[in-house]
């Protein structure tokens, strides 16, 4: 039987969310919905930002317990800024992901948080890393997470193509998030996207009425 992230243990404190990151030709797109709910019955915030900046060209999205995720990202941000001063260079994306991984793995019994890290660095260009619940770290061209991600595995598998253009990738990410928000009752609100390239990071917010609609709406 499939396991949902909105397990009864996690329900009270889960962000109940949909997060996504995808590599395109020259950059990455990372994005999420904006709903925070309490137990699936009450929307406590319609416009929460789940895409956290940990360095100039490195962002991460959190899934799972909101409190755990915030604590971990705060620690990681601090460690990364120290690391980049020591190295006298901006940190690599894998360095950011590894910092998160160390925290998740070493505290795996207490924490219930997973992360998607996406960014651009000079060594390897655009990258996406996933740190899962127990502290596994892997690199993937496209990845999704959160309770709403279950509904879009099929869509992402079918529609993601390697080396898309920036516009194609933005459309893909917007569509995927809109589809998930349409089926998952604890995901919703607006779509927050960040496009990261060599030139920098650009925030795009797509409000609910500008989201793509599909044949049943």
């Amino acid at each position: 039987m499939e396991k949902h992230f909105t397990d009864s243990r996690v329900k009270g404190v889960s962000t109940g969310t949909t997060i996504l990151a995808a590599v395109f030709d020259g950059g990455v797109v990372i994005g999420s919905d904006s709903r925070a709910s309490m137990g699936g019955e009450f929307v406590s915030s319609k416009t929460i930002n789940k895409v956290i900046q940990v360095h100039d060209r490195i962002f991460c999205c959190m899934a799972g317990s909101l409190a755990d995720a915030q604590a971990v990202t705060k620690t990681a941000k601090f460690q990364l800024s120290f690391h980049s001063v020591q190295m006298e260079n901006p940190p690599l994306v894998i360095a950011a992901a590894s910092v998160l991984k160390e925290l998740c793995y070493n505290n795996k019994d207490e924490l219930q948080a997973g992360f998607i890290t996406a960014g651009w660095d000079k060594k390897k260009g655009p990258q996406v890393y996933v740190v899962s619940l127990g502290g596994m770290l892997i690199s993937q061209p496209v990845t999704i997470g959160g309770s709403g991600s279950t509904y879009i595995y099929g869509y992402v598998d079918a529609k993601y193509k390697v080396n898309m253009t920036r516009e194609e990738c933005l459309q893909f990410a917007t569509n995927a998030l809109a589809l998930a928000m349409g089926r998952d009752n604890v995901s919703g609100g607006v779509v927050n996207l960040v496009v990261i390239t060599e030139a920098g990071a650009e925030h795009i917010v797509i409000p609910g009425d500008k989201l793509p609609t599909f044949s049943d709406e």
Partner: protein
Amino acid sequence: MLGEAEPQWVSEEVKTGTTIIAIEFDGGVVLGSDSRVSAGASVVNRVMNKLSPLHDKIYCALSGSAADAQTIAEMVNYQLDVHSIEIDEDPQVRSAATLVKNISYKYKEELSAHLIVAGWDRREGGQVFATLSGLLTRQPFAIGGSGSSYVYGFVDAEYRRGMTKEECQKFVVNTLALAMNRDGSSGGVAYMVTIDEHSTEEKVVLGNDLPTFFDQ
């Protein structure tokens, strides 16, 4: 002598844990399913056809507990035979769906199976009915089973009204392939049944003939 512990799958409930889909086109319907039957972590049947005939031009797709689903299908098959003799013509798809719904609703606490009923009749043409938990609703298409969660986004994005028979068949195979890739309880081969005024055609798409996607 000390008895050997029996393997775990012997005591696990057998579920079809599956992906099923049915879609209507102008003049008929296409039904599709995977072929995996699991008991806990073991696959006990990798080639089961979950598309079960209720009548010549009415089929149902089984999901949930294998025993419950098969029993409902057999009971409705019998009841439909009696009904069609009484009315002296082929039964309507809505009648078949109502019979399934009656059983699902009356025994909803005891049963855990979901059947999608689809077929063709002279009055309304191709129709698809969902009978989850004892409701009865006609829909342009329906998906069900554990694997269906993963393809809600895909079917929402890809479905368009007015698809042809061939487009519907492609849609069904693509949806099944995507779900089988992601759901541990779905897999094997894809069975497909196309029902229209003239014929009822059964088809099997073997594993290596299924569509592949960017990560394969």
